[in-house]
């Protein structure tokens, strides 16, 4: 039997030590009526050789994104992943280790996570970050719950240009409570409608949550919104794309109180949407309400730096039903991977990654604007994706798909009012050639 080491001889000796005479004796105290007395209705185990064949065949049934000229983004970004990441995060002392509860056996994990947290703070300008959450969606939910705990108010305002699946996640997380939720629509330029938002703000509003660059790629007027929120004693939560922060103003300098989002863009694989990780960072004053694990730095007896899990009193192991969150396992390896990515790219590399993405996307936009039948109604202040419209986008996309082009995401899926809209994205992996080829094909289909 693979992965089981006890031999027959071992088993017999262990029976002797325990005082039993069969494996079944281990289960004597289970009520008979709940025992499964037949074989599971499953195939027999495969040899490793058969297993490899089987899953290789299954993988081959997927057509990878590299086989397409694809402009899909919408929360999952195809960035270049340096080769050095994988050998590092595949180090078995990271891969097969558990949560660093035992600090003496985990200094490497703890330092790596501490560095991850520091990177999040550098990018966002915030004081503190946790060790990671699950993904962008749950990081928004946890941020909102945090604001509700901090302000002890009962209403939240959400921009409708936040990733629709993040909003959906948030609403699920809130479904056990009776908070009031107001969704504020976007205006004609694709930005959160500040007038509607203003109207919604009141002294029971815990937070305003927005995304910037928003789901349409557009950079929101965060500073304006955060100052309105502040006037009403509400916190500002911003979902963001961490790569965009290489060129965009740090959230903290725009009055944001809690910043969150998905970390996939930082060297993570697409992998059909997961695993990635959620990040969350805030100001020192809100530290006690920050959910999840946090690694802190101190010094050991010899005065050398030492790292350990800190602020555990907020967590469920100790606080139980009064914990800031139920989160226990998070996405540590993905967070460490992001730290490695940022270390490899460094200051200049990440900047270029953002700048190239920005340029290619704007080049794409310019090329599209040559075509009469295409409408480009939203703001031009977008980062690495934007919305364009065309009559009957579904039919167009189908035709392009046959030519191995994925034009982007059809927006009717999430926004009936944008039923002609397509959201398209460029990162640094796209080339001028691919964009030009797309335009060519677009003109001829």
């Amino acid at each position, binding site marked *: *039997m693979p992965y089981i080491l006890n031999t027959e001889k071992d088993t017999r000796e262990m029976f002797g030590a325990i005082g039993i005479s069969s494996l079944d004796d281990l289960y004597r105290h289970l009520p008979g009526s709940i025992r499964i007395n037949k074989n599971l209705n499953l195939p027999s185990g495969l040899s490793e050789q058969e297993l490899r064949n089987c899953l290789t065949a299954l993988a081959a049934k997927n057509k990878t994104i590299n086989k397409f000229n694809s402009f899909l983004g919408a929360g999952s970004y195809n960035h270049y992943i340096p080769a050095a990441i994988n050998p590092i995060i595949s180090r078995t002392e990271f891969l097969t280790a558990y949560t660093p509860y035992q600090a003496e056996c985990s*200094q490497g994990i703890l330092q790596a996570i501490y560095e991850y947290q520091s990177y999040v703070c550098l990018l966002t300008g915030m004081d503190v970050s946790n060790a990671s959450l699950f993904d962008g969606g749950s990081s928004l939910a946890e941020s909102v719950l945090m604001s509700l705990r901090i302000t002890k108010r009962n209403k939240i305002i959400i921009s409708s240009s936040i990733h629709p699946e993040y909003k959906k996640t948030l609403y699920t997380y809130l479904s056990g409570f009776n908070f009031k939720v107001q969704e504020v629509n976007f205006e004609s330029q694709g930005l959160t409608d500040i007038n509607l938002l203003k109207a919604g703000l009141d002294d029971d509003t815990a937070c305003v949550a927005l995304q910037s660059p928003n789901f349409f790629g557009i950079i929101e007027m965060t500073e304006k919104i955060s100052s309105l929120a502040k006037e009403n004693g509400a916190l500002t939560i911003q979902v963001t794309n961490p790569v965009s922060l290489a060129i965009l103003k740090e959230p903290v300098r725009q009055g944001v109180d809690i910043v969150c989002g998905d970390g996939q863009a930082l060297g993570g694989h697409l992998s059909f949407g*997961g695993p990635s990780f959620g990040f969350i960072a805030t100001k020192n004053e809100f530290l006690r309400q920050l959910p999840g694990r946090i690694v802190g730095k101190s010094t050991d007896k010899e005065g050398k*730096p030492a790292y350990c899990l800190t602020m555990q009193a907020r967590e469920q192991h100790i606080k139980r039903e009064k914990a800031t969150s139920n989160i226990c396992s998070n996405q*540590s390896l993905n967070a460490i991977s992001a730290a490695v990515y940022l270390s490899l790219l460094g200051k200049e590399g990440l900047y270029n990654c953002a700048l190239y993405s920005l340029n290619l996307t704007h080049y794409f936009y310019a090329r599209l604007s040559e075509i009469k039948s295409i409408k480009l109604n939203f703001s031009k202040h977008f980062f690495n994706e934007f919305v364009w419209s065309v009559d009957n986008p579904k039919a167009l996309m189908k035709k392009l798909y046959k030519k191995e082009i994925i034009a982007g995401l059809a927006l009717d899926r999430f926004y009936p009012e944008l039923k002609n809209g397509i959201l398209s994205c460029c990162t*640094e992996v796209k*080339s001028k050639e691919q964009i030009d080829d797309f335009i060519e094909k677009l003109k001829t289909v």
Partner: protein
Amino acid sequence: MDTRLIFDKNSSGRKTNYIKKPDIALKKANELLPQEVLRGDLNLPSLGELDVVRHYTNLSRLNFSVDTNFYPLGSCTMKYNPKINEELSALSGFLNIHPYQQEDSVQGALELIYNLEKILCEITGMSRFSFQASSGAQGELTGMLMVRKYHKLNKNKKRKVIVPDSSHGTNPATSSMCGYETLVVESSRDGLIDLDKLSKVLDNEVAAIMLTNPNTLGLFEENILAISEMVHKIGGLLYYDGANFNPLLGITNPALMGFDVIHLNLHKTFSTPHGCGGPGAGAVGVNSKLLDFLPCPIVDKKNDKFYFDYKIKHSIGKLRAFYGNFSVLVRAYAYLLRLGKEGLPRVAQNATLNANYIKAKLKNDYNTASDKPSMHEVVFSCMRQKEKGVSALDIAKRIIDYGMHPPTMYFPHIAKEALMVEPTETESKETLDYFID
């Protein structure tokens, strides 16, 4: 070893060109965007590839791990993570697919999810599974939100959730996140749920009880059928925290025990690696009562085509963007195919055998938290040692000196000076003997 932070190894000007400069005329950021949305300096370090590789490789060397050390951390099922699963989950066909690609281009991924669900249904007796949760705790949240919506829809007035005092901290925390009041029921002296005490707290306002079985003392809740009957009678549901399901694979299942909704930690029972604390996956299974409440989408099949089904009548919605920690599902699926119908019960039996062997060998030196037979793990109480001035912590440190990861300490709280040992089935008698000595 140079243990400075990576930031302290910064050397301005050092860099590696990973990405390609696009072949268009590059504009500066402020030519494309208004100056006021742009940031000033980006204070990241500048490093060479060798700097980074050496830094993190050396950090990794400071850790204990399953591949380097015996790691009997109780409640965590630190079993061996087969290498083939890593290889297969890294296949380009699994790694390089976008969640919004057309379904016909990701049939392999959908088939995998579909098949994995079918296998878990057979093992647990549940009707369907959702894979959106990224961890056990998020699985609990998923399940309990379904419970909540179920009661709401059925107009049941429910306010409370019961958890035993031995329960894992995530259980009460989850209950709070669902807006429930948490009631704690004390365990009896032998470490099991005290039925009398349970019946006292059970009333019509109880929405559900959350149970781990075997519980965190490693004991099987023998009265599970009685408990299930009591809870169901007041219209409550039973939630199964499947973190400890390993010793029961193919032996019994949560459906037979009377559970309505469960989660399984794929990163425990199904051997996906823990990765310093994630990514994992919490597969959430339900029986027919809760089918209509599953998060959406789920994967279905029609005319040999697999597709995402978003039409779930009373779906609680989504727990995350996209569909779940897909790469983790690949590993779990590979593991299940590899073990097959014969392998799974053998896993359970050997996990139980190993724990009981340790218990048998150490019971003269350490008090056990209960006299009941153990399942996959055994909890010792070091009170006898404590009296001699040796705490559980001291013992743990000594175990580290011997190159092994110590067991879980001071949990569960109801055992004093607890040391919680879960050897798992992938360790040998030889290793256990070394640990025992």
